[in-house]
């Protein structure tokens, strides 16, 4: 069964432990600017929204990559292959969620890969705002279907979209 990162922004206190954990695990440094998950701060409303890649079915980033440096693994995770990424940044403008970013220090792009199955952000979150759960249990697929249906004229099938999982 596919698991998904479930974000409940209502529980987020803005402590940014998720950003620290992500940048430490992925970059070996505590630098929130290089975190794959970001907490957006709505100053005026005193609310915080953790935000990262949803591993969307359309895989816009993967479709846009000119050298096939982004692929989808058996768990539906979209992975950037650093050895193939040329740093052209087309995926950063193609991802309509804005969750692929360019890392100038490596000249490659970075995105969330769910730590390949045990996301550090979810482990680090002290309030349960970020959890990693069976997607069915989380209602994630249902939500995804809903979101897709709400979108006029969109299909969930891209050229490199993995076959539907049972």
């Amino acid at each position, binding site marked *: 069964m596919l698991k998904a990162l479930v974000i409940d922004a209502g529980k987020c206190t803005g402590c940014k432990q998720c950003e620290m954990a992500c940048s430490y695990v992925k970059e070996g440094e505590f630098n929130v600017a290089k975190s794959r998950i970001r907490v957006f701060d709505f100053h005026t409303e005193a609310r915080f929204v953790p935000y990262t890649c949803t591993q969307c079915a359309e895989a816009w980033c993967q479709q846009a990559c000119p050298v096939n440096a982004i692929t989808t693994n058996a768990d539906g995770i979209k992975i950037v292959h650093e050895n193939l990424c040329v740093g052209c940044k087309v995926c950063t403008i193609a991802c309509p969620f804005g969750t692929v970013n360019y890392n100038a220090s490596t000249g490659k792009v970075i995105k969330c890969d769910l730590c390949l199955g045990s996301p550090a952000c979810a482990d680090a979150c002290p309030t349960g705002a970020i959890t990693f759960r069976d997607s069915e249990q989380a209602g994630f697929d249902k939500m995804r279907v809903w979101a897709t249906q709400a979108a006029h004229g*969109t299909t969930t099938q891209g050229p490199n979209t993995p076959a539907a999982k049972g």
Partner: protein
Amino acid sequence: MNYVVLGAGPAGVTAAETLRSVDKNASITLIGGDGNEPPYSRMAIPYFIYGKIGEDGTHLRQENGHYDKLGIRFLNARAGGVDTKAKRLHLSGADTLPYDKLLIATGASPIIPRMAGANLDGVETCWTLDDSREILKHADRGAPVVLVGAGFIGSIILEALYLRGCKITVVELAPRMVARMMDETAGGMLGRWCRKKGVDVRVNTKVNGIRQGSDAPGAKLTVDLSDGAAIPASLVVLAVGVRSNIGFLVGSGIATNVGIKVDQFLRTSAPDVYAAGDCCEGLDLSTGKPDMLAIQPVAVEHGRIAALNMAGRPTPHLGSLNMNVLDTMGLISSSFGLWQGAPLGRTAKLIDEDKFKYLKLEFEGDRLVGAQCVGLTDHVGMLRGLIQTGLKLGIWRDRLLEAPERLREAYIAVAQGKPGFGPAQPHVNTPVPKVA
């Protein structure tokens, strides 16, 4: 079913793969037109030129035997014409290939400006792998290079030449760099950035001609400019634009304009002939009108949609969003949709000339319809998200007019809905074009 896909760029390869994914038994032939090269990405060539990747790093698919495994017959040949009545494709030599359904995805080619010396040795375009091999012969560290054209492609080549350590002069006819991608402010910033990096950028300048011979050490050519300068060069790179590869269709009865004319299903005027990518004029999402948007994501979109239609799964193409991203020696810029602004629309601007930062948002009513960025890269895809979904910004339109830097907040607020709503996935739709 016998599918023939003419052209093995991103559009053709995506189409062949999509055809296979929906039709396990069909015969699929994919025809490349570039010597003996496997399908590769022109976009990756600049990275090959400055040594970030090897030649194989430019390949569209890396896995050995990828096409064989999918049962896609790949061959290289040039097309000489299409007999749309007999449904046969004429190839180089005397070969002809019958088809049940044909996709034309022949891409585009660089325009060679009419000027003296354009055919001299050391005057190159930068479009194919072969071009890049030629460029490498003349582009050593310190070599004087003249780059003709500072559009999007020219500017990408500029970075590759800069990173090779060439001594570069850029000659651009327009009053600014990337004139078809960004406005005066952004183009001006790019120009200033380049000069700061030691690149001699000359806008409003024309190349009168190129001559053999030069007195300067290491140079063998001289480039005469309209401003009176005579610039020595070991290499001249021409990047003044591209045009659709449609010449072989003369007499085929397939209707063309700047590119091949297609309908919403990417059908050409001939039965069972489709077109995709740079060679055709697909719908522009922003204008609702046909246009040749020669960018990678559009080619892939066309390729997939054309293939589905060829395979009998009617899938309308509702329009592609024009967008570009550019790295000019470390200064990253991007533009989306109606970056020139909408008639009667409103504009939000954030300019920091000293720090080379610029953000400009274009609204029509309370929707975002276009954007430009310089020096800003984090979450820029959200701009595409907002433009393509056409989501109403509501109160966030005025907030953005006041403070465009709140873009990310606006996106989350508008696309994600209310807090505590759970994992509401931001969704993307493709609005129906405004004008048919």
